[in-house]
């Protein structure tokens, strides 16, 4: 058992996968440059020492990254691709949505695309173009799987599953959760350190985890919002409100059963995500609960999400639009009293 940040845990897990299987390789910008950054958040730092030929450094060409990863995945390789900031996924959107996601379908099941695309998300006072949470765009696309680990343990287990998976997986990682060090350290980051067992394990997709048990309200939250929800739950506990916090861990596939089971107990549901509210994954979850489990609820479903604005720069504005612990506390109080 070792204590690791998410960045360290991912780095070790990627190295291990590359050792286990020589078709696994990394591709992205600034990922394997000697004396360089190891990707934007140090996840691949130093891997070029062991895997020079399998750390494919690219020009600043996101379409190329996605296309090269997809084409390679179609023909016997298992790429772990990487964008520096999730926001740049838009540059490669055609490849990911029209090519990567549909290759298997258009071929009538003849082709597999076992690729992973890792993308950092989250608002970190970098302004509107290095900040977005993008889950909603990708959960919308049939053919893609979407995962979002919030702990080092999950990052390792889910990355392994993603690498072994024969379908394309978009993996969202939160900048404030990496625990990147040195000059890539993130101001105001949570950087949780977590235990990662020495023995090899994987985490199946579609299995949520209950981060905190409670009986009064179910809060479903992902990535950084798991931590905000837990902090809110601690504050609310002092007021006698017992929150159950569920981390779905993967959004496609999504573990609805764990949510249904929880709301049968609590009768109340709040959904917290950093992606903007409108058509975020929370909208889908709310619709699912409304159609499959509405009679478990004693109160309307509450979504606590980033407001429907771009991410502003000024910290006072950024902190306002992204769900804060305070906002979650207040909204849950209202929900309990409704």
């Amino acid at each position: 058992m070792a204590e690791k940040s998410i960045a360290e845990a991912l780095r070790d897990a990627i190295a291990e996968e590359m050792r286990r299987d020589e078709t696994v390789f990394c591709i992205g910008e600034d990922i394997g440059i000697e004396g360089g950054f190891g990707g934007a958040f140090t996840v691949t730092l130093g891997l070029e020492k062991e895997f020079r030929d399998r750390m494919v450094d690219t020009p600043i060409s996101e379409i190329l990254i996605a296309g090269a990863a997809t084409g390679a995945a179609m023909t016997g390789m298992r790429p772990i691709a990487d964008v520096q900031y999730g926001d740049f996924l838009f540059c490669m959107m055609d490849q990911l949505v029209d090519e990567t996601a549909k290759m298997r379908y258009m071929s009538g099941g003849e082709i597999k695309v076992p690729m992973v695309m890792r993308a950092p998300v989250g608002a970190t006072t970098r302004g509107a173009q290095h900040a977005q949470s993008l889950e909603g765009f990708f959960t919308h696309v049939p053919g893609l799987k979407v995962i979002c680990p919030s702990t080092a343990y999950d990052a390792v287990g889910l990355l392994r599953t993603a690498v072994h998976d024969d379908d394309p997986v978009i993996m969202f990682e939160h900048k404030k959760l990496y625990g990147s060090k040195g000059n890539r350290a993130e101001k105001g980051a949570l950087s949780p350190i977590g235990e990662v067992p020495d023995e090899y394990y994987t985490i199946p997709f579609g299995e949520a985890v209950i981060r905190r048990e409670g009986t009064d309200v179910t809060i479903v939250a992902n990535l950084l919002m798991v931590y905000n929800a837990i902090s809110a739950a601690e504050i609310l506990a002092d007021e006698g409100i017992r929150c159950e916090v569920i981390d779905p861990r993967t959004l496609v596939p999504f573990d609805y059963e764990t949510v249904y089971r929880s709301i049968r107990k609590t009768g109340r549901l709040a959904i917290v995500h950093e992606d903007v509210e409108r058509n975020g994954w929370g909208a889908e979850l709310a619709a699912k609960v409304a159609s499959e489990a509405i009679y478990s609820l004693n109160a309307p479903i509450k979504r606590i999400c980033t407001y429907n604005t771009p991410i502003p720069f000024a910290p006072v504005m950024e902190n306002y639009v992204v769900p804060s612990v305070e906002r979650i506390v207040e909204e849950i109080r209202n929900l309990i009293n409704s």
Partner: protein
Amino acid sequence: MLNFSREKLLDLYKNMVLIRKYEERIYFLFLEGIMPGTIHQSHGQEASAVGMLYDLQKTDYMTTTHRPAGHALAKGVSLKSMMAEMFAKTSGCCHGYGGAMHVGDMAVGAVPAIAIVGGGVPLGVGIALSCKMRKTDSVCVTFLGDGATNEGAVHESMNGAMIWKLPIIFAVENNLYGASTSIKQTTTIENLAERAKAYNMPAEIVDGNDVIAVNQAAERAIARARSGSGPTFLELKTYRIGGHSRNDTCGYRTKKEEAEWAKRDAIKVFGERLVKEKIASRKELNAIDEQIEQDIDEAVVYAKSEPSPVAEDAFKNVYVQEGLI
């Protein structure tokens, strides 16, 4: 004719006729209204398809575009499975999930066609990267149109292919139009091959209607790719005889231009050359034509009689793991 064997020359002819007659039959079947979908046909561009792909192996790859039929046939996708796909049948090369714009068969290295203009080119680079990383000697021919050379995806791909010295050939079919828009309106350069210079990529301008010229250029490019010397850009100057897609009456082209190019019809010119140089008699060529008509008749009968998918098959193949939707 040069040092080509008689067998190869007749094959080149036969493969071109197959594409022409296939496209003609598809057009006819469309007019009959018994085929779903739309079509972008490649009449007139047979020499580039056949010349480029004749020397490839099944273990080599090819990516193509919204105008894929000629490329797919020339890469070895079976006529019957192509026809069945056009009729949206389960035994189609994409099992009814693809259609005219996505035909392909990975078993022969034909990547299902990509109908996003320029979208197949980055995939071609990825495939070539994989060929290199897996230490195979396979190569990838990636077809694109003149119009596609204005897509950013193509430029990222050309640059990437060069820095990684990949076994890929960019086969640009310059048919002078992207849909209805003349190339004169979309670029200020005379020859698209000039774009290769920006990436330091070897390039050739080739008469795309001369199957021998195309094949020789392809041979050079393939040899370069296989030997690890990197990509080549081939500009194949050609012309599509028919419209851009179904119902296109080509009001944006002059009759004069069409007539000029009709004189350079790849199959007509090559057939005449074979006869003139006494490689085959007209009678022998006619026999080839007739055999192909028969093969196509059989393919149509086969395709019509094959079973269709059922509606719920739509839920299959979204993911490898079934039931995940």
